[in-house]
């Protein structure tokens, strides 16, 4: 089991090493510095945390297209709470709570009305983006700076931003949740075969709703970091980020059919995307080149994964 799980993450890991070696060979002096590593990880934190939540959703056989909008809602809610005089900690909690609520709405619509997750969360994506703009009056809101900005602040050489540490702690928590608890086992079972799960007494609806709530709550935590990064709430931030988040999960070896995926792979997937973005910038490549490269990596990752599965099946 354990060996198999490492093997599953090995593909993305090899990919990550390859990408790093490539950029290190091309731009050693600027790419391989502690500052640059810290920057890459800082750039990973928002997507990384959100994709931890998305990993659960995707393993359970679902998808959440609304996380980009949820993050925007989160930053706006935090900003509004701060301008209303709330303490930063309280404001962050309210932001996370509001995000989780969005996930609860998606989850309930999907399970109660038996609607497709793709459609429900596509609707939520638009509706929440609108809600964020409405709440913010279509303007970014910049309250006075608080310690929330510290999450994304780059410190001295040798240190990592707090947000990166938060991502790592959450990753461990999700890994434990997935592998060491009954709930985690149920998530895999529901994604692998919902009928079997039901037959075996797994409370399928509850698992699904919880998964969307957790996924959205992680988007809420990501929104706290995004708020710190922007030092404000912006209803137009992170448009389309859900696609990068889903890409990170898929590069990490999860299957959009459900039942497969893991924390390690997802984190590696998220880091690969940041490394590519960072490396392309260092090479002075235009943004469009970087977008093409990312696209190629997504397809290549899935292709390699399916090839590997095909060969292992024949043994």
């Amino acid at each position: 089991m354990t060996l198999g799980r490492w093997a599953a993450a090995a593909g993305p890991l090899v990919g990550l090493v390859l990408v790093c070696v490539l950029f290190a060979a091309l731009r050693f002096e600027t790419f391989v510095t502690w500052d640059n590593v810290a920057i890459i990880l800082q750039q990973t934190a928002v997507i990384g945390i959100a994709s931890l939540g998305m990993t659960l959703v995707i393993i359970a056989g679902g998808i959440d297209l609304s996380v980009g909008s949820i993050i925007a809602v989160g930053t706006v809610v935090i900003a509004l709470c701060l301008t209303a005089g709330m303490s930063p900690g309280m404001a962050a909690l309210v932001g996370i709570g509001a995000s989780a609520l969005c996930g609860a709405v998606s989850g309930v619509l999907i399970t109660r009305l038996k609607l497709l997750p793709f459609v429900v969360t596509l609707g939520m994506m638009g509706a929440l983006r609108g809600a964020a703009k409405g709440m913010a009056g279509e303007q970014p809101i910049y309250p006075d700076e608080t310690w929330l900005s510290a999450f994304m602040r780059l410190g001295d050489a040798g240190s990592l931003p707090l947000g990166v540490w938060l991502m790592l702690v959450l990753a461990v928590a999700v890994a434990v949740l997935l592998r060491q608890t009954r709930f985690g086992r149920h998530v895999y079972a529901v994604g692998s075969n919902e009928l079997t799960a039901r037959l075996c007494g797994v409370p399928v609806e509850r698992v699904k709703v919880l998964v969307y709530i957790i996924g959205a709550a992680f988007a809420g935590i990501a929104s706290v970091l995004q708020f710190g990064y922007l030092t404000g709430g912006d209803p137009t931030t992170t448009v389309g980020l859900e696609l990068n988040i889903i890409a990170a999960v898929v590069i990490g070896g999860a299957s959009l059919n459900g039942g497969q995926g893991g924390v390690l792979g997802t984190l590696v997937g998220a880091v690969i995307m940041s490394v590519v973005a960072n490396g392309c910038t260092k090479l002075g490549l235009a943004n469009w080149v970087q977008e093409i490269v990312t696209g190629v990596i997504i397809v290549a990752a899935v292709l390699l994964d399916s090839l590997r599965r095909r060969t292992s099946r024949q043994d």
Partner: protein
Amino acid sequence: MSVARLRLSGICKRFGATQALKGVDLEVRPGEIHGLIGENGAGKSTLMKILAGVVPPDSGAMELEGKPFHPETPESARRAGVVMVNQELAIAPHLSVAENIVLGAEPGGFFLNHSNARERARSALSKLGRADISLDIPAGRLSVAEQQLVEIARALALGCRVLVLDEPTSSLTATDAAALFSLVRTLRDQGESIIYISHFLEEVQVLTDRCTVLRDGLTVSTCETPQTNPSELARAMVGREVNELYSRRSRTAGEVILRAVNVKGGLKNVSASLELRRGEVLGIAGLVGAGRSEFLRMLFGLDEFSSGQVEFRNDSQAGTPTQRWKSGMGMLSEDRKSEGLALNLSLEENLTLPRLGAWLRPKRLEAETRDWIRRLAVRCAGPGQAAVELSGGNQQKIALGRLLRNRCEVLLLDEPTRGVDLGAKQSIYQLIDELAAAGKAVIMVSSYLPELLGTCDRIAVMCRGELGDARPVEEWDAHRIMLAATGASSG
């Protein structure tokens, strides 16, 4: 004697460490129904994959109508005239009957030639004597039997030389199966060659002209079917005498543990009452689609019913499957592949799913799974192996192991031996017998009458949703059950 339609000789195939085929010979004559039988793992499916062009043989010769036949892809096998109709039907439910029949071989170039397509579809259906099926309705609206017919028609429209039917009756009612038999005979009389694969030896006996038995990757015999009998075939398949297929030790029926009172409802209009006692095996017979599975699912809380009640251990609260497992009831699904098991998950995950602590203890779960694998003699690589890689019989043992591990007091078994080989069947019968002797209560739904008669203490027959009275097995025989199941006598 004319040249053989299809001749295979000395076919060998190795997958990694396993020699799946060690030299198979098969000769199919024009205008014959040729039975192909063998236990799971005997090499039938590998042979069919080779025939269908899915995998190439390592060695051996294949000839189709005297010419070398070496299909490199399923496409080229079909074009050469070897067409399979599998157990799992390949029908596009939203396309019309005509579109399905010409699927993959649509006449016309870039633009479809609709009238030619319809003509070909119609002529294929009329060859089957079923010109009554409308060409225009979506194939998904047809019954399973009719969908199968559409697949056979598709093979005919392709101009097939050898038609392979793999377990064609496994999802058919007795009436539909009889209709299929006469259709297959018609095709034979028109000069088609049919390879007929089945687990049901009685079927093979009735239908086929000759029959080839595979065992352990070898052809053990080919014989004229009329000169043999099912028990001889069974002996050839397993390589030993099969006398004690069913086991039944003395059982004592105890208190009533499960009671259904006027349970009504569902799509099949189920209407049923029954009492199940400890220490007995209660069989439910009936035609496929009579509502047997639905009734079982109602008892287990998987399907809803509109009136009546189910009392389990004197508790009549409506139960969900979660509660049922907790209070000691377990269910085995009739559909192992799409419901019974999560095929991509490991054996351990499949076996332990109904009962897990809030915190998992991986070492202990693994040891426990290892233990069940040993006790049930499951052939596998270990607890971490994915369920999909096991043979049908071994998969079924894992699915059954789930109920045993949960120490279920009441076991609802829906077609427990479907698609499993003789050896696994025998161990499943033994297991059921042991459970009953140990005071557990079993309800077994089956379409295979000999196993119901051989295993059960009482049998009730369901006909169009109505469940008849459960009567001691001594009062039944196959004929009486069929009469009750078809509504010819009040069950």
